[in-house]
């Protein structure tokens, strides 16, 4: 396998593992928890290093996962005091954990290779050089094994608890009454997020894990209403960002992790603009169409409301309409033209009257929106 291929494959695996969980974080409005966890892992890693008396993958993993769970618990505890808002709780806990980690590193491991830069940037560039050996047998790049396993674990987690996760995400109250503990599920999800974050940041660094967790999931959320489709799309966008990010990094000769995060943003931006349902362009265009459409409805309802009242005669005069409804005369002309064309109203001398077709539509509009 070429170096480039290993980097891209690692990136795709990281992105997939993150996107699987990210969908639930985005839907459960807990996106910033992944940010908190990714920063809080540092003291855990240091602790692991201290216990194992050196860099040990498994111990480091455990330490980091424990630190992740401590963070989650601390945030919950702070929130439950009722004295701190949820977002403030996060804003207190993770900088404290990160600062603690930095403090430990500088105090006790000043000369050791555990520099904070690597934690922020990650080292996906070296993915193909760090290899996993069993005895003397070279099993291939270690990062691929780690991320492959994490992908498997997350797939298993989401697959096994799909129903429960879905229920707890959309209706926590119902889930509780049906006997699924939303709290237990919350901690289980957070535990998997922690482990994934640990694995992923060796590849892409702490903050960029956040990009891969949240951004592809949010991108997918702009395109679909269905959870399975959203998960699939999120994985797809994550993989796309990993591959395009790799090439962007080659082009600029810059950090691969940074480029991947940048690309998640680029894809998000494109979808934000051009999504057929949620996109800004579509929305803008729809608003224009709907405005006239809606104005026509307003006209019909207006005429119907005043049909049998004493002031009907004045209320339905063309000139009166534009001033009363606060429409500019040209816009009023357009709307009236539209209504005349569709035979919703007819002109009687200088006033407008509803046709039976128009009355039907006015009633439908009221029913539909009421």
């Amino acid at each position, binding site marked *: 396998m070429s170096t480039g291929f290993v980097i891209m494959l690692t990136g795709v695996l990281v992105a997939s593992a993150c996107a699987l969980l990210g969908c639930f974080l985005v839907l459960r409005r807990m996106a910033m928890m992944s940010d908190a966890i990714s920063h809080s892992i540092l003291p855990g890693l240091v602790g692991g290093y201290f216990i194992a008396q050196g860099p040990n993958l498994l111990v480091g993993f455990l330490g980091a996962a424990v630190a992740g769970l401590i963070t989650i618990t601390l945030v919950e505890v702070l929130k439950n005091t009722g004295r701190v808002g949820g977002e403030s709780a996060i804003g207190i806990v993770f900088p404290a954990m990160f600062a603690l980690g930095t403090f430990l590193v500088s105090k006790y491991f000043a000369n050791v290779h555990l520099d904070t830069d690597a934690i922020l940037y990650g080292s996906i560039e070296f993915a193909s050089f760090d290899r996993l050996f069993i005895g003397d047998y070279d099993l291939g790049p270690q990062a691929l094994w780690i991320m492959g396993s994490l992908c498997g674990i997350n797939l298993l987690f989401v697959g096994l608890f799909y129903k429960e996760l879905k229920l707890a995400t959309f209706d926590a109250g119902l889930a509780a009454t049906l006997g699924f503990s939303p709290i237990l599920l919350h901690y289980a999800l957070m535990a998997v997020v922690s482990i994934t974050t640990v694995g992923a940041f060796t590849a892409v660094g702490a903050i960029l894990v956040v990009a891969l967790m949240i951004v592809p999931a949010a991108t997918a959320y702009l395109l679909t209403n269905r959870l399975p489709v959203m998960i699939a799309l999120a994985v797809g966008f994550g993989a796309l960002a990993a591959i395009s990010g790799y090439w962007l990094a080659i082009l600029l000769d810059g950090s691969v992790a940074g480029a991947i995060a940048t690309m998640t943003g680029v894809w998000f931006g494109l979808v934000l603009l051009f999504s057929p349902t949620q996109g800004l362009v579509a929305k803008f265009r729809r608003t224009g169409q709907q405005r006239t459409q809606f104005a026509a409805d*307003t006209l019909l*309802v*207006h005429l119907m409301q005043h049909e049998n009242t004493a002031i009907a005669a004045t209320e339905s005069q063309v000139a009166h309409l534009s001033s009363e*409804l606060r429409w500019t005369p040209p816009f009023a002309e357009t709307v009236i033209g539209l209504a005349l064309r569709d035979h919703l109203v007819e002109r009687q001398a200088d006033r407008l009257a509803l046709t039976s077709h128009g009355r039907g539509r006015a009633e439908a509009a009221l029913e539909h*929106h*009421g």
Partner: protein
Amino acid sequence: MSDVPLSINDLTVAYQEKPVLWDIDLQVPAGVLAAIIGPNGAGKSTLIKATLGLLPAAAGTISMFGKPYRDQRLLVGYVPQRSSVDWDFPTDALDVVMMGTYGQLGWIKRPGKQQREQAMHCLEQVGMADFAHRQISQLSGGQQQRVFLARALAQNAQLYLMDEPFVGVDALTERAIVLLLQELRNQGKTVICVHHDLESAPAYFDWVALLNVRMIAAGPMATTWTTENITRTYGGRMHALSDVAKVSA
């Protein structure tokens, strides 16, 4: 025309591309205590918010005493829903009431002794003078609602718009609020409240607007509060039918 406190013509309001109020016409005469009544989702709060320009109107015009609201802010007092603010905010009752004077003060100018006395006077009117320096989170729901009313009094307005002033208050407070609102009306001011309790409505108010996405009927309580109008307002909404039955029984 200019003495009509509130005149709404052909108001249509859309919320996130969906219309929630259709072609509303409403003329509220001076010196009435009016209720806006309708089922949940009828757009009662929306109507108040649109009137105050807090929500944009898709069509139609609104005027207060003959001019648009932005020229008449000082004549209008507003009581939002109590649940719309965080009562754990670090401040006391007097300070909240003083916020009612901010409109008269305008930008930058700070409230002084005069505003403090004005606010204190308003707290006395709602029977809350003893609680002036109480942290607002330590007040009961009824007391919080009184503070909000006092804040509106501090606006010293001619027209009052109130969003559900009776929600979550105890019976004693409810009575006190009604008396206060009637007192305002007797002073010649106009009070409009969003209200959802059909039973108490005819006793509390002397004018009513029945709303369900469009204006069903509006006028003096005596002539407008008919079973037919109420049924038309709540018609088709199952949960409300029992309420209607209660009223006509």
